[in-house]
């Protein structure tokens, strides 16, 4: 899944006219040498050459001249070549401007000094017109290719950002979250972060009526564009084709058979799908290679993992899944998460070991209760703790969703 789309069109064959139309600024205090350089370039077909005798004046005019390349002598009265090169490099717009330095020096340390000052290349005087032209052309062609690449990159970044907005639009909308809160008494907190602009994680929510709500969280293998496309396939299938009246295990079975028909070998997903039933006060769920959800209960806010099992999706169309259920009483919380939470490293080891995760979940739940359930939920608090310990850079997609069964008396 490392395939990156290639540029849709080949870079143009390097048309001579492209480079020959470049603006060249030549600076040399020696009129004869200056004319020699100008002439060599003009004979090679370059049409826009500005020949200057004074470096300081040229520097003052530089933005008006708008050079594509600067050719400068080194030994000059007033502002010398090295000073001139350093002054150009200090201007942010000219950070990557090709600068070709002409020098009579042969000693390696003096040549090194020119490169240290910021020269892109160097020709030795007396100049050979052929060598000069070849070096100028090469520098200009490189500049053009770099510009082309940066335009391409910019466009890809824009497209990825657009796609990322589209992907986030697949996640449950505020309206759905509010409906579930109203109909089921479930307060929800969610974190969704992609490591590469686009992610392979997705989660969803749907009110089923009669105090029930369906929730799922899935994590496709790999990350980036291919994994993100798979999240679209899954979300569309669940929305359009899933018969949600069935048991969680039967729903996973439907999804597994769908993915077996869609995904190539080597791509797969882990998933948890469950139904909150706030009347019978249970959470019934089935899992496919997913991490165990955390249930937080009681006055002490004790955390434990709910049992899981079942193979990853797309492993085999004959795979069997099991419906399990855990009590879910008013005041209880349930946390679902992708392995981006548990595998994020800190000093070469996962930060959230199972024991650490349980104790942090309890702590987060206690803090939330102490704040009168007004602050961020358990999912956000776990993410913040991880970010504080392991740093902000994600190597995997991270999704965490926590549900709190509101108690009528304290949440009224």
């Amino acid at each position: 899944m490392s395939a990156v789309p290639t540029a849709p069109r080949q870079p143009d064959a390097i048309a001579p006219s492209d480079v020959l139309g470049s603006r060249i600024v030549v600076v040399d205090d020696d009129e004869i040498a200056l004319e020699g350089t100008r002439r060599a370039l003009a004979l090679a077909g370059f049409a826009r050459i500005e020949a200057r005798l004074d470096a300081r004046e040229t520097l003052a005019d530089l933005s008006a001249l708008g050079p594509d390349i600067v050719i400068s002598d080194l030994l000059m009265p007033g502002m010398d070549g090295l000073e001139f090169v350093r002054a150009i490099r200090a201007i942010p717009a000219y950070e990557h401007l090709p600068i070709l330095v002409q020098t009579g020096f042969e000693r390696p340390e003096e040549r090194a000094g020119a490169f240290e000052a910021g020269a892109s290349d160097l020709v030795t005087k007396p100049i050979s017109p052929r060598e000069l032209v070849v070096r100028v052309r090469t520098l200009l062609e490189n500049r053009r290719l770099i510009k082309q690449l940066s335009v391409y990159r910019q466009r890809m970044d824009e497209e990825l950002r657009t796609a990322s907005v589209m992907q986030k639009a697949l996640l449950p909308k505020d309206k759905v979250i509010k409906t579930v809160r109203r109909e089921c008494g479930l307060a929800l907190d969610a974190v969704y972060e992609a490591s590469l602009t686009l992610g392979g994680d997705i989660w969803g929510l749907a009110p089923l009526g009669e105090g029930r709500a369906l929730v799922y969280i899935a994590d496709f293998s790999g990350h980036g564009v291919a994994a993100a496309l798979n999240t679209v396939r899954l979300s569309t299938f669940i929305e359009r084709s899933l018969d949600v009246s069935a048991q969680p295990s039967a729903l996973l079975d439907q999804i597994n058979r769908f993915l077996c028909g869609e995904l190539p070998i080597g791509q797969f997903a882990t998933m948890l799908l469950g139904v909150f039933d706030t009347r019978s006060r249970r959470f019934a769920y089935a899992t496919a290679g997913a991490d165990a959800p955390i249930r937080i209960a009681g006055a002490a806010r004790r955390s434990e993992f709910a049992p899981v099992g079942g193979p990853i999706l797309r492993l085999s169309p004959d795979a069997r899944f099991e419906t399990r259920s855990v009590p879910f009483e008013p005041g209880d919380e349930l946390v679902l998460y992708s392995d981006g939470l548990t595998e994020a490293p800190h000093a070469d080891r996962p930060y959230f070991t199972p024991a650490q995760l349980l104790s942090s979940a309890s702590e987060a739940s206690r803090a939330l209760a102490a704040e009168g359930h007004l602050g961020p939920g358990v999912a956000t608090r776990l993410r913040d703790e991880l970010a504080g310990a392991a740093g902000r850079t994600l190597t995997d997609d991270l999704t965490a969703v926590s549900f709190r069964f509101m108690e009528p008396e304290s949440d009224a």
Partner: protein
Amino acid sequence: MQAEIAKGADYVEVRLAGALTFDDHEPFRQLLSDLLAAESPHVVLELSSVTSVDSSGLGMFLIADDETKRAGRRLTLRSAEGQVRHVLKLSGVDTIIAVE
């Protein structure tokens, strides 16, 4: 990922080492085609020095299994330890591919 190939009488074994991740996809594909080119009926991935495997790494095992089967050979994952062993079991991949 590092890899070292050894050929026996009726098997070809590759010892993998390090973390098996997203970035190893291309080298792994190449490795797989080298292994199949060895024409041994039995392909063994020796995993005792593999420190971790992510979802892309697990996907590579599934691709290896598929390609060895297509070529009429069989694949064994040998000596997985720690996180790797855990992931093979949790994912159910150990029900599809022979794990020793």
